[in-house]
């Protein structure tokens, strides 16, 4: 059985940061994402639980910080009713940014016809795209009448856990179809940076993390046939073209799969035939389908009960 992995974010200077990634590799951890920004670098990684202190010691020596990132390895859709200036960049982008700080990968999704009250609706394509994610966060507005009576129809047909953010202080039960409601994050025309705004965002992250924890426990009951980060590592080793992908996260991890940002037509056979040390190929362990997002490859890993074994 593989060691228990814990998600962490390292923030520090670019100088000598490869020492950390080398150590991580030696310990059997996984580097999920590396974001260099000028002289700073952010590393999102999964570290074996017993060895966290080793990375922490090295990180302190390099004057960086290591913090826990409970949302690592999740792909979250941040859905706003449209892409108009009413929702963007504030508050929907602030919501997405705050989720990313805890390690999540987020995709912003603006519905084509989500605006208004009577006319708001979502298309089949949009719902399928949202359902490819782990969790959907819907960012709604100021009026409780809209959030209670009109907007919940945008949540219909979305099968993944749904978090709704809005201005008024409502109870989750008031919003039909929602799994969690978070108040005080309504429509604003400025950046969310006041202390009470940040604390509502913190509450949202906490609630999303709770859902992720629940989902992980659910998966642990019937574990995945292979860990998504392991598939990610194999893709990096066996499909070198992934290095040429310009997306910030060429491979995006999900709780039960991953999104590989290579064209499906050209690469799906390579991905299906990805070979593990045990001599098993990926198509035996996972469903590989074209993603609704661009022409990417979506891998959903089967459960142990279905495959009969786990590696």
């Amino acid at each position, binding site marked *: 059985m593989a060691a228990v992995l814990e998600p962490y974010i390292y923030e520090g200077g670019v100088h000598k940061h490869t020492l950390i990634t080398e150590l991580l590799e030696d310990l059997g951890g996984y580097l999920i994402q590396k974001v260099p920004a000028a002289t700073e670098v952010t590393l999102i990684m999964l570290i074996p639980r017993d060895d966290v202190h080793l990375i922490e010691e090295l990180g302190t020596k390099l004057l960086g910080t290591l913090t826990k990132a409970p949302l690592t390895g999740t792909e979250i859709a941040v859905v706003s*009713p*449209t892409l*108009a*200036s*009413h*929702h963007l960049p504030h508050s929907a982008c602030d919501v997405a940014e705050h989720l990313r700080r805890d390690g999540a990968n987020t995709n912003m999704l603006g519905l084509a016809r989500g*605006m*208004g*009250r*009577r*006319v*708001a609706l979502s298309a089949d394509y949009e719902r399928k795209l949202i359902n490819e994610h782990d969790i959907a966060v819907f960012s709604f*507005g*100021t*009026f*409780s*009448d*809209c959030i209670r009576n009109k907007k919940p129809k945008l949540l219909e047909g979305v099968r993944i856990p749904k978090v709704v953010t809005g*201005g*008024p202080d409502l109870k989750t039960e008031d919003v039909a179809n929602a799994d969690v409601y978070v108040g005080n994050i*309504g*429509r*604003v*025309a*400025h950046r969310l940076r006041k202390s009470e705004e940040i604390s509502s965002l913190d509450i949202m992250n906490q609630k999303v993390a709770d859902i992720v924890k629940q989902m992980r426990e659910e998966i642990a009951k019937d574990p995945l046939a292979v860990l998504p980060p392991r598939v990610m590592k194999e893709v990096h080793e066996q499909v070198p073209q992934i290095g040429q992908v310009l997306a910030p996260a060429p491979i995006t991890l999900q709780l039960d799969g991953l999104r590989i940002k290579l064209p499906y037509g050209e690469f799906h056979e390579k991905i299906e035939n990805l070979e593990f040390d045990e001599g098993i190929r990926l198509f035996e362990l996972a469903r590989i389908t074209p993603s609704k997002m661009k022409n990417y490859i979506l891998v959903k890993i089967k459960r142990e009960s279905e495959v009969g074994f786990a590696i």
Partner: protein
Amino acid sequence: MEALETFIVESTVPEEGAAYRSIISDIISELVLGGAIGRIKVVIRPEDSLFQMAIVLRGSQSPVKLSDFAEVGYGNLEKKEIKLTMNEEKYLPALLEKLWARYSRGNVIQPERKTLLIRQKEDPEKEISFLEEMLVADPKQTLLSRLVEMAIRSTPEGFRVRYHSMKDNYFIFVASEDNLKSEWIEEGHMILEQLQEEK
């Protein structure tokens, strides 16, 4: 009338009105309309999909001439150069546009931040008196377009049926998702009357 001496946003639920007030005040400051608006009242009824806004503007600002913000004098006399020394950079882009159109780009030189030199062949004295009286910006014209922008930005999204009226210094804006009822527009005018009566 003081700037923003009345600023009311009413909604069915009072707290939501307060939240909406912060949105509108952000938009007003973004579009630099704070000084232009005297009184503003907004009434929102989400259950009817209705947004009403009435604004009383403070007396309109007069057009800006070059001599209002710059000194026009002689540069190099032999070359018939004209020298502009500006006190304010705010109008520089608009001024440059005008100068380029008249003298062509190559003849307008900016040796440092607040100084412009113009190379030209006409009688400098005549040119100087012309430049002093030249209109550079008309705040009134840009004000109207900014007001409309503000109205559209502050309306809840999806309220695409709109009515607006601008008379003198009074602006009314009504928007909804459905067909506008005539009583809603009348209500808008009533809100404006209330604002006008305030002393």
